């Protein structure tokens, strides 16, 4: 053990240094909640590591002693045992003090977290689906209510209130660099307040096992300056762009004639399905299929042609399309900026 500990420790440090820069890491906080939590994690880790080292020293001591000489195991040195008793009682007392301290620390950290969103001006409803996120921006004016999917734009530097629930199974919303996770439970509405200090793209993913494609249920929080965010919201409220080319026009016709419309909505067209992501501005998103593929013409085509190959078990069926039809639909979707 003694020769192994330094190796493990060095490995751990090396690995830590390599990974702190992740964009989905609890150790790389980009908002007040995650910063508070990262501090808490480091504090607990440091304290626990110290306790562990002390226990290991206490364990190593007898291994370095001289071998015992007496053969009779029932002959006990009462004085020595009394001294040990004092040491043990002290250790127990210290344990209790540390635990009470950590309990209080965790209680106050919880209060700090709860205060973050108390003045949130923006409310977003997030509904979990197998295996994507429905995102609805609430507004007092009904015509300003916006529904999109998977990518959540927020104004940077402002607290945002997320009302989260699910309509199928339990999911969990987790963007580690901004905040801890919270479950989306059918029949329950949970509230999570988040805030990003600076503009940036923060990745998250579902953290509660939700079936076949749990692994590919990603989301992005895109924090932008307020003006940019307002402009984005305004753009997203517009109906879908009209197809520009003949191919795209043919694609729209095909889209509306095929089963696509049973599930998907394209604002401004008869397509009004609500069980799958809203496609009105799909080409303005950065990713496809809940963070599984980056947005590109090739990936759009791949996803439509073979959804079960890319996300086995997903609820997107294979559409029976010829090559030309596929190209046309992709051309149409690509224009939905």
């Amino acid at each position, binding site marked *: 053990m003694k020769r192994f500990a330094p190796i493990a420790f060095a490995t751990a440090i090396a690995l830590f240094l390599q990974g702190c820069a992740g964009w989905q890491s609890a150790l790389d906080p980009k908002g007040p909640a995650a910063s508070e939590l990262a501090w808490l994690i480091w504090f607990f880790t440091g304290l626990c590591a110290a306790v562990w080292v002390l226990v290991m020293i206490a364990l190593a001591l007898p291994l370095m*002693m001289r071998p015992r000489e007496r053969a009779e195991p029932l002959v006990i040195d009462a004085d020595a045992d009394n001294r040990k008793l004092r040491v*043990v009682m002290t250790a127990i007392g210290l344990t209790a003090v540390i*635990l009470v301290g950590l309990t209080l620390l965790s209680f106050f950290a919880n209060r700090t977290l709860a205060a973050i969103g108390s003045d949130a001006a923006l409310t977003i409803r997030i509904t979990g689906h197998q295996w994507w996120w429905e995102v609805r921006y609430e507004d007092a004016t009904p015509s300003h209510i916006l529904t999109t999917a998977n990518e959540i734009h927020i104004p940077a530097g402002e607290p945002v209130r997320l009302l989260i629930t699910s309509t199928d199974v339990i999911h969990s919303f987790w963007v580690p660099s901004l905040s801890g996770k919270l479950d989306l439970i059918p029949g329950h509405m949970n509230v999570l307040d988040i805030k990003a200090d600076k503009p940036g793209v923060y*990745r998250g993913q579902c953290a509660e096992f939700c079936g076949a494609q749990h692994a*590919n249920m990603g989301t992005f929080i895109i924090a932008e300056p307020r003006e940019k965010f307002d402009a984005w919201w305004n753009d997203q409220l517009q109906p879908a762009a009209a197809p520009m080319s003949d191919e795209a026009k043919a694609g729209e016709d095909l889209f509306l004639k095929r089963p696509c419309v049973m599930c998907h909505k394209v604002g401004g067209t008869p397509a009004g399905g609500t069980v799958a992501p809203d496609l009105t501005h799909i080409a303005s998103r950065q990713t496809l299929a809940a963070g599984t593929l980056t947005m590109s013409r090739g990936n759009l085509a791949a996803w439509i042609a073979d959804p079960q190959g890319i996300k086995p078990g997903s609820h997107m069926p294979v559409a029976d399309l010829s090559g030309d039809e596929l190209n046309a639909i992709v051309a149409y979707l690509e224009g939905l900026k």
Partner: protein
Amino acid sequence: MSSADITSERDLRPEREASAKGDITPERDGPRDTGLDDASLHRWLARTWRTPPGIIGALSSVDHKVIARRYLITAFLFLCLGGLNAVVMRIQLSGPRRGLIGPDLYNQLFTMHGVTMMFLFAVPIVQATGIYLVPLMVGTRNIAFPRLNAFSYWVYVSGGLFAWVSFALSMAPDVGWFAYVPLSGPEYAPGKRADVWAQMITYTEVSSLAVAVATIVTVFKHRAPGMSLDKIPLYVWALLVTSFVVVFAMPAVMVTSTFLILDRLVGTHIFNPAEGGDALLFQHLFWFFGHPEVYIIFLPATGMVSAIIPAFARRPAFGHLGLVLSLIAVGFLSFGLWVHHMFATGLPKLGASFFTASSMMIAIPNGVQIFCWLATLWDGRPVIRTPLLFVLGFFFIFVIGGLTGVMLASVPLDLQVHDTYFVVAHFHYVLIGGSVFPLLGAAYFWFPKITGRMMSERLGRWHFWLAMVGFNAAFFPMHIVGLWGMPRRVYTYPAELGWGNINFFISAGAVLFFLSFVLFAFNLVHSALRGAPAGNNPWDAGTLEWATSSPPPSYNFARIPIVTNVEPLWAQREALPVATGLRVDVRELVVSTVAEAHPDIREKSATPSIWPLLAAIAVGGTFLYSIFTPWAIVWGAAPIAITLIGWFWPKGDPEDEE
């Protein structure tokens, strides 16, 4: 004991000498062990207590040692299967977007890994160790309710087969070992997979409950004369507390799984929010079992540590009373922490904080145990043999697991690491460090008692270091990758998150850890065939199981020892005082009082019977059928009733006729 468990006398021809000493049935008394010389005593007892020859005889055995051996071997096989599951998962996860297996198989694999390790390996193996050791340690001749004990094994093995045959048919549960609704409910889990989970859980927990009841009664009523509560070995205390935890925890999961199958099969809406049910109720019920489950696995292991450390530290455990009280405190507290598995469900914040406090609090009795063990070791350099090495490994690993447990107890901190690989690392440190390492130590420690041969010390040391390096290489980095944002239960992950290298390292460690078990299996087989003869007490340990021969005879002790010290063999170096007066022509044992262990009455212990096996088959068939239709309960009732009538058929002994 039920009257039907009383021995039948059909294959014995006792001389019916009336004896004035008889206190139960003087008119039908047979020969006693009082005046017999050792050779004829052995002849009598061997004939009375043997397991009958032949296949039917083997299947009828009610000897606790025979049944425990079967349990141990079966549980070890399930460990290997569960470990293979893990290796396949680790190969899939060794790099981003690997295509070795898809989500359908992966989800079955991680569910089977959890179900197998929790229900088919960990709980059965700690209980099996207890089945073997508790009667020996308390100085009796068989476990209480021997036929129930036999029944429990058959139920367990068929429950395990049920799960693994389903897996072979690609019908294994794929909803996680926790099977949360609505994912496991009728709407989102079509097919029979979730039903297999539900019934297999109910089924194996029946077996676990049976063992718990038998253990409790053995400890309370069958202790050797003089083994008052303060002289019960710590291992036996641990098993006693564990058995009580089983009795109160297992019904919660049986209720959960039964509610689930009612929702799925009968169309109740207990967990359906659309009809006024509640999905969170499932989690409360499940974790009310699930958290004590951890202690069901861990407490017996602490008992093993408490047995191994004194033997190699060459002194009785420091703080015996403190250790016992800690065990009991942990047993109670384990029922007050279940909500810390549900911090991310959005519970009221104040309520959640209460569970932070209670989860922190359980670290205190666990700390007491750790400190007492350390203090036991402080008298000078302990004798370092393989069993103690594994106990030292237990300290190294388990303390990390315990400390990360303290981190998880904090509500806000938990919200970052809940359901990530950090938690996977944490509970493997707790369960492998806290339970498997002591179990491996226990295997090296008690193997000589069970087989009469020593395990190879050389291979043992190799095994230890391989396991240590493999385990830490596999699981320590999981803490880190969890903090980097990797959730649990994902069959793959994208390359751009940068988790590839560390996962490759983890997978390599996992393979190394698996290889350590291959080495262990080789050592087991090799030593069973070629090991050096062990003698009665190879470690010069102090508890009663070392007083008898290795392996022990079918009747355990030729004469029932009298206990005067918590380490009787250290107190009485020459020969143990014994109690006499038991009949040798029928299976008789001493029933003693609960607190003082005064010998109270002589009682008969059940003879071999095939009925427990038949009853288990009837129960198993009913459960299997019940995943298809609720009417199985109706049709299954008849064969179950028949087998139970056969099992409890009165034998015409005087006690039956009272």
